[in-house]
């Protein structure tokens, strides 16, 4: 669940707001970075850049923040959009430079697990539509509620649930070996 920081806690004076924004960054930094890492496909440098850019944009627009939504909802909306912009830019760059479509995943950036499996999970997420991927990561991997996810994406809850269902079916099909609890998923990964 979100750690709520409302407009009232942000303070009226610019100095108070800045101080509260610093607290907000400290509270959300790790989660925001992890969410960005998952949305951009496991690229550590890109995830940090996307996270920082989202914080900067939120900071720049702080004066226009009126508190209709919580600060977290507002910030994560920016972050998800930033991650999408990065993916779009990377797709264009990849096609332009005729590079391999496979984005190298930094082996040191993830927790101790098989790099091949991580790459396969990233590729399976790539197969999803934008909204399916965002809903899957936000709700199932990051633990946001459907309503929070709907607020981030600007979609009705029913639509988010539909995306979740389809995303789960596709992911289970793509990563069928992970369905089997006793199966050794890492061996079938293939780098």
């Amino acid at each position, binding site marked *: 669940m979100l750690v709520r920081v409302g407009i009232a806690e942000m303070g009226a004076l610019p100095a108070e707001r800045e101080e509260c924004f610093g607290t907000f960054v400290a509270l959300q930094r790790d989660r925001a970075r992890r969410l960005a890492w998952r949305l951009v496909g*496991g690229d550590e440098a890109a995830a940090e850049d996307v996270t920082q850019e989202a*914080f900067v944009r939120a900071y720049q627009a702080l004066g226009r923040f009126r508190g209709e939504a919580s600060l977290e909802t507002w910030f994560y909306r920016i972050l998800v959009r930033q991650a999408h912009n990065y993916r779009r830019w990377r797709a264009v760059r990849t096609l*332009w430079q005729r590079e391999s479509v496979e984005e190298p995943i930094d082996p040191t950036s993830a927790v101790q697990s098989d790099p091949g499996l991580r790459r396969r999970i990233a590729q399976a997420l790539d197969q999803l539509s934008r909204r399916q991927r965002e809903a899957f990561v936000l709700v199932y991997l990051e633990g946001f509620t459907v309503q929070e996810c709907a607020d981030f994406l600007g979609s009705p809850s029913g639509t988010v649930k539909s995306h979740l269902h389809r995303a789960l079916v596709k992911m*289970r099909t793509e*990563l069928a070996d992970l369905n089997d609890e006793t199966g050794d998923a890492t061996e079938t990964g293939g780098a």
Partner: protein
Amino acid sequence: MPSSDERKDLRPDDRRFIQRVADHYTPQPLSAARQATFDRRLSERLADSARLPFLRPAGLLAATCAVLLWFALPSQQVSDPNFKDLTPRSASTPLAQDTDAANTQDITSHASLLAYAYYQSEAQTDFLPAEYLALADAFELL
């Protein structure tokens, strides 16, 4: 790992699958040193954004001008009568200039017609360079 209410509504095998994906697909936590680096870079970016706010509209204006110039220049070269003066066969009399202008319009319109006929008759996708097609495909996919 946070657990949303939605996960509890899932079947046990779905829940186990998602848990496995989440376990394998997660970044390493930031070390203290990298956390400090992250915070320092963020502070620098925040300071830069606060220090030079007037550069943003100026940059946007410059980018808009550049785009407009980019699209305006080729059409200006074709339609501007002075453009012909740069060519070796410069005309001296006003009558000749008018004739040249008319000829240029004819050539331009013929070229447009030919291009349009080619566009209609040939495969339309072949009309664009491969790079543009690749970009168009990319945006279709996203």
